[in-house]
């Protein structure tokens, strides 16, 4: 089937197998490989992107379901001038990543979280990230980073 998805502001059109998962559309067709696959059961959140402005796990959305929609991945988060999004800046400053594999999904989940709750408590950050697994950081610095980003303007 034919689908058209706007990815990071750019319209992508392709003829795909009906069963194509959004994450594979992004990785294999749009060529954006930052979004990762970490599990089969919608558990790990590594594939989190924004679909029409809200966080979703792109391994559990058919590309067909996103037809006509707009997707933002971590590649589309920084400003056109290359300036980092406050969440990206905070992950860097607070050492909120180690191996980096969960990071794109984690960052997108954090962006969505702060959009819905601009000034969360630590506990709200932790619950807000319950759908994103990280094996490296113990979440400590990820939580610090989200709290730091929330203190910034425009996060």
């Amino acid at each position, binding site marked *: 089937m034919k689908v058209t998805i706007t990815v990071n502001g750019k319209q992508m059109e392709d003829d795909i197998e009906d069963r194509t998962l959004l994450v*594979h559309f992004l990785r294999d067709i749009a060529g954006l490989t930052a979004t990762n696959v970490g599990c*089969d059961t*919608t558990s790990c959140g590594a594939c*989190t992107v924004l679909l029409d402005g809200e*966080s979703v796990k792109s391994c559990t959305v*058919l590309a067909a379901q996103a037809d006509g929609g707009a997707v933002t991945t971590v590649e589309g988060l920084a400003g056109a001038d290359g300036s980092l999004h406050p969440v990206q800046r905070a992950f860097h400053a607070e050492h909120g990543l180690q191996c980096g594999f969960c990071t794109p999904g984690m960052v997108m989940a954090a962006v969505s979280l702060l959009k819905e709750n601009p000034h969360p408590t630590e506990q709200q950050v932790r619950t807000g990230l319950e*759908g994103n697994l990280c094996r490296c950081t113990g979440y400590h610095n990820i939580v610090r980073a989200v709290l730091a980003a929330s203190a910034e303007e425009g996060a």
Partner: protein
Amino acid sequence: MIPASFTYRRADSADQAIELVGEYGDEAKLLAGGHSLLPLMKLRLAVPEVIVDISRVRELSYIRDENGHIAIGALTRHHDLEHSELLAARLPLLAHAAGEVGDPQVRHRGTIGGSLAHADPASDLPGVVLALDATLVVRGPSGTREIPATEFFQGLFETALEPDELLTEIRVPKRAATGWSFQKFTKRAIDWAIVGVAVQGDAVALINMGATPLRAAAVERALAGGASPSEAAEQAAEGTEAPADLNGSPAYRQHLARVLVRRALEESRA
């Protein structure tokens, strides 16, 4: 992992969805939020030949204050239930419980109707609508019918829905303000309930204590007979068939049911 091949059809209206389901019959599966179905398809535990995507049927996404009841479109997402001011004011139990389903990403996609139609006894919302004495409105080729929540859940992942029917609305009767509580016991916040309890007034529903969500009838009878919350809660495991799995034995679940029902009753009356 990737689902086995299927044909994708999108419905833009409830009528079209019913038409498509009628056309494909047993071969078709309805896809609402997809967060129960797609993981099963990826593990190839479900291999439908046709997927009828109803996630864009906007007409079924609403929360309305109608005379005598609150009407909720079946395709209203958990996220919208969680953040609804109307529900916060009139049905805080439902708004709160919706906020406990899965994780934020799941709540952005998952719908109340999808959750009810999937009828996982460990899911939160089936138990909640049972405690709320909700009525489920379903539509099929021959029209609309109403099913009380108490009759909707018929077994493990089994409901009163016919294959050609679509769940369209959940109606919850308005009532005088009564206390409520939702107790979800898990190892991790992200887990399904090992045992859950939803209380609205004197109605008590149990989650994951049998093949379907259950009303704790013995507890409700004891309360009606004037028992205190802690006395009534002692009856919580009566009539249940708690499953055994990685997270708990039946005996442990029975114990949890008693503790959680007591806590729920106490909280709802505080």
